[in-house]
């Protein structure tokens, strides 16, 4: 590894030279215009207006031209769209959409739902600023059971479907409530074992098995139905856990079929 003096000084010279090459480029950036932008308050216009038209932001549904064909629901790979169709009680020939929920918190903005839409009712907007304190506020309900909308009849000859300006409907929904509003109160999800009809055989089985000293393998899920049946609560909680195997044949899980 013997290094001659000329090699040694040459390496120093190369290092200093290449160092100044790099440094000159860095220094030249003092004179260049910065490319960074101060978001969000120093932009010349709102950022959503600077985005390209194909930008895939929040989904918007124009219910005036929605045909209720459910093509978007089928196309969604993660089932974040939920549509329910019913017959109009006043006019049995007319079908109405009683539920059109899009869970924007779950949506992955892939754009697969937009493509099969026959009228262009469901579209991506350029809206992306939708932070909410409660994640349930990101479930956009484009229809509900109290005010369902009738399905749109497609005119085969029409070349153009009148659509509300893209983004206007979504903005109205977003601005309807402040970002930190409490979320809508839904009923808590019902566990299959905690439903009312299930409670009777379970309680009976729990009472029968109360004497058996079966060690609880894990913490009891404490089904809400148990205390209502008059069984002493601590005994029921201890005994309820080993029971599910016995109650299975009585109430087959609807999800397993």
């Amino acid at each position, binding site marked *: 590894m013997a290094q001659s003096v000329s090699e040694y000084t040459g390496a120093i010279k190369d290092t200093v030279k290449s160092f100044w090459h790099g440094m000159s480029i860095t220094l030249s950036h003092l004179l260049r215009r910065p490319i960074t932008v101060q978001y969000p308050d120093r932009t010349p216009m709102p950022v959503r207006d600077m985005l390209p038209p194909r930008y895939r932001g929040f989904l918007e549904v124009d219910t005036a031209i929605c045909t209720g064909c459910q093509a978007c629901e089928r196309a969604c790979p993660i089932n974040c769209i939920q549509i329910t169709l019913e017959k109009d009680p006043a006019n049995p020939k007319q079908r109405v959409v009683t539920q059109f929920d899009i869970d924007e918190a779950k949506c992955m*903005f892939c754009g697969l739902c937009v493509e099969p839409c026959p009228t262009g009712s469901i579209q991506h907007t350029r809206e992306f600023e939708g932070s909410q304190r409660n994640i349930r506020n990101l479930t956009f309900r484009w229809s509900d059971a109290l005010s369902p909308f009738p399905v749109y009849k497609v005119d085969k000859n029409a070349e153009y479907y009148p659509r509300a300006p893209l983004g206007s409907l979504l903005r109205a929904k977003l601005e309807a409530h402040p970002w930190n509003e409490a979320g809508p109160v839904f009923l808590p999800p019902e566990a299959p074992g905690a439903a009312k009809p299930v409670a009777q055989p379970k309680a009976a089985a729990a009472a029968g098995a109360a004497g058996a000293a079966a060690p609880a393998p894990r913490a009891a899920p404490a089904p809400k139905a148990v205390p209502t049946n008059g069984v002493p609560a601590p005994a029921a909680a201890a005994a309820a856990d080993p029971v599910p195997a016995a109650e299975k044949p009585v109430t087959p899980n609807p999800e397993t079929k």
Partner: protein
Amino acid sequence: MEKLILRRVDRNYEEMVLNFGPQHPSTHGVINFIVETDGEVMKRAIPDVGYLHRSIEKIGEATGYPGFMPFTDRIDYVAAMFANEGYAIAVEKLLKVEVPPRAQWLRAISCELVRIASHLIAVGTMTMDIGAFTPMVHGLREREEINDFIEALCGARLTYNYHRIGGVAFDLPEGWRDKVLAFLDRFDKFLPEFDRLITFNEIYKKRLAKVAVVSREQAISYGLVGPNLRGSGVDWDLRRDMPYGAYPNFEFEVPVGKGWAGAVGDCFDRYYVRCLEMKESSRIVRQALETIGQTPEEIMAKVPRNVKPDAGEVLSRVESARGEMAYYVVSDGTNKAYRVRARTGSFTAMSIIEDISGGLMVADLVALISSLDVVAPEIDR
């Protein structure tokens, strides 16, 4: 306390087992290495993969054929376009669908732009791991423009979901071609500037020279692909040797490691191969944009909405930014795939680390990982 320290010295610790990662800024995502060290020198580093496993392949069996396309974006989010392309080609082979020529050109344009963006990340993060922060910011600045173009093309900056089974989703937007050509003019000037900024910096070169040398035989036997394979001096590129899509129409060279800094297959070779590949990708995009027709044409083949291929199995291969990416899709005749398997370049790149790391310094492990350009989600999928 004093006693404790003395006892530790007495016991003469020669080996120490360390966890490197998963939350470590220079592991390029969440990868865990179990490092056996003796002082500053590693005995070996064992990559512990699986921290980022999201069972994407299993999801492919649950969603339909078109519905899996957005999930392929998540396999390699730095260069998602290639994952799109590989999966689309696989299902097209199953369906025996011919892709319209314009769609193939659009695929090549989008993929090569993403290759530039991905390599900018690769070389940028590599310089940052070595200790130079400025070049990474320069790289990200150029990548930002490419992201803007891709955003205008398909609506997303990272998870593109641009390719479809049978074509692509959108044609070129208005004025896009001229903007990209203007960018490529600037970009061709940027590359020499970047080289002067860091690549030919003597300290940087000496730091990477003869570090973690992967020989030609090792590279082939471990199944390295892409720039890592070419960095070891193996002249193999799918785009040239097994051309697919629009690639037979383009003229480009395949850079191969020549031992620019010292030895063939060291960290600098793998790094510099990527710098040269960016130049070739820029050439391909330029050729494609200059020859592609200005009028919109058919960009989607006729594919039924309910994709239901005949029973069979196919393998598709594309040259991704991280090397060869292969999709193995088995159909049982229903509208859901029986099996989807993705073979990615980062996984094999991880397998070689245990063999190479013996005798390296701990600090060189960082250089090795970043020169292999592994992306954590691509390892585990």
